[in-house]
């Protein structure tokens, strides 16, 4: 964990309303792993006051990438940064995806901005594993397939790909992975993660999801980010410290 002021080097609108920000931050780039996140202070003023958590989207040499849409004030300010304006980064945070497990095929299941952590995961896994990506959204504009491999898409309104949600699409395709040792990596809205958990548990599939919740500190001192554990019930887990990546077996989403 460190705090570094890093210059923005590029901001691209990779598709309508979705921004990719390239930041020069060699030390973070060196340390961070897929599934970890950064807590970013977008302004020196008190508005917004708190840092904003963002998944590490990708790493390329000394550069890191964030992916976001304009949700509120913080992301608006972030999207308006000029080249060489700096952002104040606290990270790397959280645990990241567990990549040591025994699997030969990685399956990504992402809803909406849930695609954010997966370009980096894909980059690291693609030479050693088979990767299949199921990507969904409410509508065509919400589906983000940027830098993913072997993509199949789903939209709630049928405007792109499969007409339905991405977990249904994934389940429909499950039979094709029968001969593989698969591991699922999920990220997206809670409702989607719940559905994904159900499917994976029903089919006894190893599945990790990156969860989201309101955060203040991002590193375990505020107790602001509880998530209910499946087992021990006398205490909550913390999304920022014990997660954000959890095995679906371990938490109640």
């Amino acid at each position, binding site marked *: 964990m460190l705090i570094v002021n890093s210059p923005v080097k590029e901001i691209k609108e990779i598709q309508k309303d979705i921004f990719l920000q390239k930041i020069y931050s060699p030390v973070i780039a060196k340390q961070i792993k897929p599934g970890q996140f950064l807590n970013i202070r977008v302004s020196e003023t008190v508005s917004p006051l708190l840092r904003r958590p963002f998944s590490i989207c990708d790493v390329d040499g000394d550069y890191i990438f964030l992916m976001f849409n304009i949700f509120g004030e913080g992301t608006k300010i972030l999207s308006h940064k000029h080249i060489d304006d700096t952002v104040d980064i606290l990270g790397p945070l959280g645990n990241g995806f567990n990549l040591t497990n025994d699997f030969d095929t990685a399956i990504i299941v992402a809803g909406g901005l849930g695609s954010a952590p997966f370009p980096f995961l894909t980059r690291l896994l693609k030479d050693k594993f088979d990767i299949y990506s199921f990507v969904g959204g409410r509508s065509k504009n919400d589906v983000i397939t940027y830098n993913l491999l072997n993509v199949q898409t789903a939209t709630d309104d049928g405007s792109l790909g499969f007409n339905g949600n991405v977990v249904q699409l994934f389940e429909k395709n499950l039979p094709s992975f029968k001969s593989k040792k698969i591991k699922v990596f999920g990220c997206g809205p809670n409702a989607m993660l719940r559905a994904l958990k159900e499917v994976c548990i029903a089919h006894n599939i190893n599945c990790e999801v990156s969860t989201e919740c309101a955060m203040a500190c991002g590193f375990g*001192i*505020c107790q602001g980010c509880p998530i209910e554990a499946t087992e021990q019930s006398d205490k909550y887990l913390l999304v920022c410290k014990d997660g954000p990546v959890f095995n679906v077996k371990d938490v109640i989403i």
Partner: protein
Amino acid sequence: MSNIDLSVTIASLKLRNPIMLASGTVGYGNEIAEFIDLNKIGAIVTKSLSLKPRKGNAPQRITETPAGMLNAIGLANVGVEVFLKEKIPFLKKYDVPLICNIAASSVEEYVECTRMLNEEETIKAFEINVSCPNVKDGGLQFGNNLTAVGKVTEKVRAVTNKPLIIKLSPNVSYIHEFAQVVKDSGGDAVSAINTLVGTAFNIFTRRPKIQNVFAGLSGPAIKPIALAKVLEIHQKVDIPIIGIGGIMNWKDVVEFIIVGASAVQIGTLNFIDPTAPIKILKDLENYCKQMKINSVSELTGSYII
């Protein structure tokens, strides 16, 4: 080395400088120690401890507001026993005064917690949280009730000789009345302020943003209120005050000290910049140099009205 004396004294508690880390904003010190050298800090105040472990409130527990944040953590903590067994060993490694903050739902529980912690020599003082607005069975009725605050102070005083600090609720009309009761009941100092009661709602779902509905407001938004409370106490009651509320930088620290604080606590700022307490120390020293102040304690209550 500089020749500015940053040390301060609160009753019999001697601190190397006036910068303390506020309860609930540094856990038990482990995480923040990755960012700063705890040995340089004036004191560290633990998350409020209760007799038994508390799971705390269900999510959502926090939300941001203009220049502030609301929290209703619900006093999630490991409980006194686990604290003594599992958290104290880490803190023992540092040469930083440890202040145990205690929250309870009855006078008896306050007393019992204090008794259990009193033997542990690493603990240099107690801060009694009578003012946490998020615990329904405790909290509010204590902090806003003069008699209750007097009684808690008196009973806890009876079981410890360590410096006894009462952390006051700002949700009252005249906070100096509470400081007076603390003094009269044997308390050594007061901390002012805890969070103000606030709420926030989602306008599309019409549901509270915080699961507990009511929550505590902290951060720079409350600084003017906190300063007024400290000044009110300083003008009316002769008791050491620890100033808390919305400190974002060294200037805020100086402002609190000028209006009457002997020391200050940094809360929400730790979430935003955990290295800030150390930076503030340097800047505070520079301010003293610039203003030709030899000892920071001269500044306390040095307002000119």
